[in-house]
């Protein structure tokens, strides 16, 4: 673990001491090397599922895909931010990279934590760099409101989680994930266990986000700069899913009837947010609501607590992370050229930037869960698991899949096809950096088709 953490930590002095010309290439190179080393985590060698074990951190098949995704995302964020930060003074560029690295550190430690206390502290730690990214480097005035919503939604739900974790430690004496998976049911009175269940999971449901408490997400995703949007969509939402999967272990005897309203809310959210996507004018807002929709499926799958549900949830989380991040990168390439996010003002890009249209096509097809991509694998496994739980869910999931296909194609057709607007006089050609960025998003997605067991999780 230290062989990843210490190089990541030392990226901070690297970003401060590198010369101006070498700042971005150096940090990019070193973060790629760190990603390479993090791929070693994907091999699960032990029967007990916990590998790379030390007293505070470990990886298991649930956390290692998320860890690799996190490490993979840092070079991609650096690559994506290079253009819009080129006009900032050098010190601010260094600060930006430092923020990204700090966020990376907190996320690695969160996913790798064995003590739930450390997970909680790192969960909260990831809020500060994200807040600073959104409110300082966002582009519109609404970013301040977005930062406030982001911080307060997350904190209002995670402070009860803190108290629940402390109460849990009081009752059972430990908060180590290695031990609580072996504990039996906890003796709590029947009315208190409702509160216990709700407060434990509320933080993660808000983070995922669940439909009723999702209002922070469109604001935060839209107002954040590209690196902020990428890390939010790809990893921070998955913190919620990961936390839920971990805490379900301790909560299992309590949760049988309590999860019903949340499953219904999640599934209804899938339908609702997909429908909202159909009526969006803002491209980033569309992608943000698409994230809510996919995460609604993940939330429902985790809440039903079957092995297939957890497997499907993890696969969809990884696949959605890569796809959503790629979509935000594509939206950013558009934004950097036209400085608008309104879709009707940026149509017909296929004529102007044909290769980018290919990436748009592949990414939109991934978003709508085209076989054989892991997006489909995840969605199919989740839909089957939900069907096994109750026949009626097929209405929601089927309609949701249909509307997802509709808005993904709508997004593609709006941005790529159609007449080029008359006001677009010149657009810079695509940079190789942008092609590289999208390739690095889509290549892992395509490669995962061949070996999905890497992101399968510990249920199988």
């Amino acid at each position, binding site marked *: 673990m230290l062989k990843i953490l210490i190089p990541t930590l030392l990226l901070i002095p690297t970003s401060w001491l590198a010369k101006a010309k070498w700042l971005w290439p150096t940090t990019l190179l070193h973060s790629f090397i760190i990603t390479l080393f993090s791929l070693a985590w994907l091999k699960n060698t032990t029967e007990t599922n916990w590998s790379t074990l030390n007293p505070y951190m470990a990886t298991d098949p649930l956390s290692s895909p998320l860890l690799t995704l996190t490490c993979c995302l840092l070079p991609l964020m650096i690559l994506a931010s290079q253009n819009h930060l080129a006009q900032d003074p050098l010190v601010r560029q260094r600060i930006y990279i430092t923020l990204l690295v700090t966020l990376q550190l907190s996320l690695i430690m969160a996913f790798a934590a064995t003590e739930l206390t450390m997970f909680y502290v790192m969960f909260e730690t990831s809020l500060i760099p994200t807040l600073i990214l959104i409110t300082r480097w966002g582009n519109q005035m609404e970013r301040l409101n977005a930062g*406030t919503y982001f911080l307060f939604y997350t904190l209002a739900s995670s402070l009860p989680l803190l108290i629940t974790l402390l109460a849990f430690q009081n009752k059972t004496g430990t908060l180590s994930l290695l031990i609580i998976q072996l504990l039996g049911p906890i003796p709590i009175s029947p009315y208190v266990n409702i509160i216990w269940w709700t407060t434990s999971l509320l933080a993660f449901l808000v983070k995922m986000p669940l439909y009723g408490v999702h209002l922070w997400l469109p604001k935060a995703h839209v107002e954040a700069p590209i690196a902020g949007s990428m890390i939010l969509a790809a990893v921070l939402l998955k913190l919620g899913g990961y936390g839920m999967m971990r805490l379900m272990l301790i909560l299992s005897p309590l949760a049988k009837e309590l999860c019903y309203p949340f499953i219904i809310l999640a599934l209804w959210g899938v339908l609702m947010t997909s429908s909202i996507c159909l009526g969006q004018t803002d491209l980033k807002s569309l992608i943000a609501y698409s994230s809510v929709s996919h995460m609604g499926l993940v939330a429902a799958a985790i809440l039903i607590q079957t092995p297939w549900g957890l497997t499907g949830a993890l696969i969809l989380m990884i696949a959605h992370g890569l796809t959503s991040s790629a979509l935000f990168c594509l939206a950013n390439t558009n934004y950097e050229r036209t400085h608008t996010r309104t879709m009707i003002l940026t149509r017909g890009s296929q004529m102007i930037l044909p290769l980018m249209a290919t990436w748009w096509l592949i990414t939109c097809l991934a978003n709508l869960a085209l076989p054989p991509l892991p997006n489909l694998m995840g969605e199919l496994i989740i839909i089957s698991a939900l069907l096994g739980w109750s026949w009626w869910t097929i209405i929601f999931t089927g309609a949701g899949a249909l509307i997802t296909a509709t808005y993904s194609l709508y997004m593609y057709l709006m941005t790529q096809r159609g007449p080029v607007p008359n006001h677009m006089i010149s657009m810079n050609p695509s940079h190789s950096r942008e092609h590289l960025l999208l390739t690095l998003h889509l290549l892992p997605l395509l490669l995962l088709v061949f070996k999905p067991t890497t992101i399968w999780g510990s249920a199988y």
Partner: protein
Amino acid sequence: MNPYLLIVLLTSLGLGTALTLSSTHWLLAWLGLEVGTLAILPLMAQRHHPRATEAATKYFIVQATAAATLLFAAFNNAWLQGHSDIQHMSHPLFTSMITLALLLKLGLAPMHTWMPQVIQGVSLNTGLIVSTWQKIAPFILLLQIKQIHPPLLTIIGLASILIGGWGGLNQTQLRKILAYSSIAHLGWILLILQHSTALATYALLIYIFMTSATFITLKKCKATTINMLTTTWTKAPTITLVAPLMLLSLGGLPPLSGFAPKWFILQELTQLNFIPHASIAAMAALLSLSYYLRLSYSITLSLSPNNLPECLQWRVNYPISTPLSSALPAALALTLFLLPLTPSALTLII
């Protein structure tokens, strides 16, 4: 101010607190409190501004009332009990009266109304002394009283956290915001006072570091309202960088030191099964966080004159080097980086 006078006053201030800290008899404790009050009054009134005079008057009246009540209750208790030991008070009425007097001295709800007005009226340095040093002596006395009626401390503690949060929401004057922040933090300390003296001391210590760092930063930027904070990015970029972290530390966000006292207080409360208290305190901390966040928006996260929903200040002050600014790096380091050292810090205090 005349340097000789300043030395005499500051020494008297230290002497007063030291007297109180080292006393076991109520008379000497009262004496120390009065010396401290009297010593700070010239410091408060040194600016010949009506608001400063008013602040000094209010402070004197409040502290004198509290001290008189303290003395009255202490003597009654001595009459009934036969001795005047601080640590062995037993009469419930007079214990409560003394507690209320000390809480009035500290400025906790519902006896908090003097705090914002007094701290607003004095200069930033004096406000620093009132917020940090003057809390130590009453706090130590509170620690030593053993038989306080527990609901009293709990209700006042929770009320202080809530009022500290709500009161600061509508303020634009920074000193008032820091006064309400002080009320809220002392409320947290009060919640845990009866149950763990070590944690209460630790919380007070961290609060003193954080508040000192904030006051010194504001003094350097010569900022007394939120508008005046908006131009720090042009004048003192390093302060602009760390100020949001300092404010979020006041708000109690990990991984900054301000999280440590809140975390341990919540842990202690849940271990004692005071979970509703812990929940209310935790949620009320979010109220304070909202105005700290607003301050950090003004300082760092929006570059005036762009994208700011507020007005900009017209005249630009340059940062000054105050005698206290050499303490700023130390205070800031302690405010930001103390969380990983918490276990060793706690063993030092227990």
